[in-house]
């Protein structure tokens, strides 16, 4: 591909319908995501747009907006990228089919991006210089995975959650404490006013045999039990203290496992990704701990941490540069792994 390459990325693996235009895999020209927290809050909870019909209805307008904001036309594009898994098959198919139709009709190369791998590429949009190999922690409502990336296209899964994802327990604990939605930022804020030492919640799989896997269902249940116990005893529920102690437990595990990974695999850079990467305590403690190993932590801005299409466009750019084009029989793969 010549010096200037514009990729249109599409992301429809779960709730969000998203489209973005990215230049040379590193500069975001536009990044449009259909669902916003403000919309969710009005309904007092997550309103999933899992309905594939919904994706179908708005993917056209979302693409138009992405092109408009970037100030480009279909004719200016050099490639199309879409996430093809993991995710909900009906939702994924909307993005995959749209991408195929666009690539075919515009005679452009097509890239099929793994959604989790896409998250890693949000870091390539930060302007930071990243040198391979890198370690990456993808931590969101649906995923908690530690990955090792030797270079573009070469990824190894080092650890994964065995039950709940970290973001999921943030949401469920916030619900237990009746904090509202979205749970992650609310707990993050509340925890700053609390005393983490007031309660102790378990850190699971911290022994050698747990390896680099995670387990967060135990800490969720422990918080629940704690709230029930305090209520039973007629004590006022100290939400801020519980939030701080809970966050402390989750962050401890995430930081410790990341550190273990960094000890096993020497890298210069450690990349954070996924919605929970926005957590201030996680960022702060991970940075501090990684300094001990001389590893620099890179974090995308919040809007690139959560699901978006700019990260897919960036990954797509690097896929296409390596000649990894998808064929016309591309399908959605709901249980896509590495």
């Amino acid at each position, binding site marked *: 591909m010549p010096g200037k390459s514009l990729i249109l990325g599409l992301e429809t693996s*779960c709730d969000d319908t998203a489209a973005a235009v990215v230049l040379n895999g590193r500069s975001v020209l536009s990044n449009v995501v259909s669902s916003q927290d403000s919309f969710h809050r009005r*309904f007092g*909870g*997550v*309103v*999933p747009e*899992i*309905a*594939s*019909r*919904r994706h179908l209805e708005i993917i056209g307008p979302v693409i138009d907006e992405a092109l408009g904001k970037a100030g480009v036309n279909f004719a200016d594009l050099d490639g199309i990228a879409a996430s093809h898994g*993991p*995710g*909900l098959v*009906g939702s994924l198919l909307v993005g995959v089919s749209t991408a195929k139709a666009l690539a075919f009709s515009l005679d452009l190369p097509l890239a099929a991006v793994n959604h989790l791998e896409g998250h890693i590429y949000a870091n390539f949009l930060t302007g930071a210089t990243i040198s391979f190999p890198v370690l990456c922690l993808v931590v*969101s*409502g*649906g*995923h908690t995975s530690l990955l090792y990336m030797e270079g573009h296209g070469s990824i190894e899964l080092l650890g*994964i*959650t*065995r*039950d*709940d*994802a970290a*973001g*999921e327990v943030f*949401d*469920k604990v916030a*619900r*237990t404490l009746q904090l509202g939605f979205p749970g992650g930022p609310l707990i993050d804020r509340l925890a700053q006013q609390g005393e983490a030492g007031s309660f102790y919640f378990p850190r699971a799989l911290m022994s050698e045999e747990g390896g680099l*896997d995670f387990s967060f*269902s135990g800490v*969720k*249940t422990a918080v*629940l*039990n704690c709230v*029930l116990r305090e209520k039973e005893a007629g004590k006022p529920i100290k939400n801020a203290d519980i939030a701080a102690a809970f966050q402390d437990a989750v962050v401890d595990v995430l930081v410790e496992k990341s550190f273990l990974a960094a000890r096993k695999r020497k890298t210069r850079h450690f990349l954070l990704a996924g919605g929970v990467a926005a957590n201030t305590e996680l960022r702060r403690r991970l940075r501090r701990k990684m300094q001990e190993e001389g590893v620099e932590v890179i974090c995308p801005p919040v809007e690139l941490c959560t699901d978006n299409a700019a990260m897919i466009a960036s990954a797509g750019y690097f896929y296409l540069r390596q000649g990894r084009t998808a064929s016309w029989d591309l399908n959605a793969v*709901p*249980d896509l792994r590495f």
Partner: protein
Amino acid sequence: MQVVRSADEEQTREIGRILGRIVGPGTVIALSGELGAGKTVLAQGLAEGLGVKGPVSSPSFVIMNVYRGRCDVYHFDFYRLQNAEELEELGLEEYYYSEGVTIIEWSNKFAETLPPERLQIELVRDDRDPENARFLYFKAGSAVGALFEKIVEELKKRCLC
């Protein structure tokens, strides 16, 4: 209806494994119970009994996970869903009547959409030991009556009910 008491998380998982070894293709297993009741633990045991290798994680956010064991295992979670139309959009019914086993967490949120011929398990905290022990209330539609009896027989053999 049949009640089983599980002393702790590990026993809940074991009950899941026993069920997983018995149930066959086309079975719909609807789980209900509060946060932390052990629905995912039971589902993990079920999947293991069905021959699924590797971790079975909570589908609360991703809504559905697919695994391959003796047959396909569809692991659903209604936790985040707000209305029954979303279910319809997901094409859930196709899974109910497929050759796989369907496990649904938070199934009580949209009980009216579930097929009548299902195995229903409600997990309730035992107040005498609320942090660990659970009662599992089993119910089944008439067409899965034979399967239900087999399950009860197997659980009795192991002195679980």
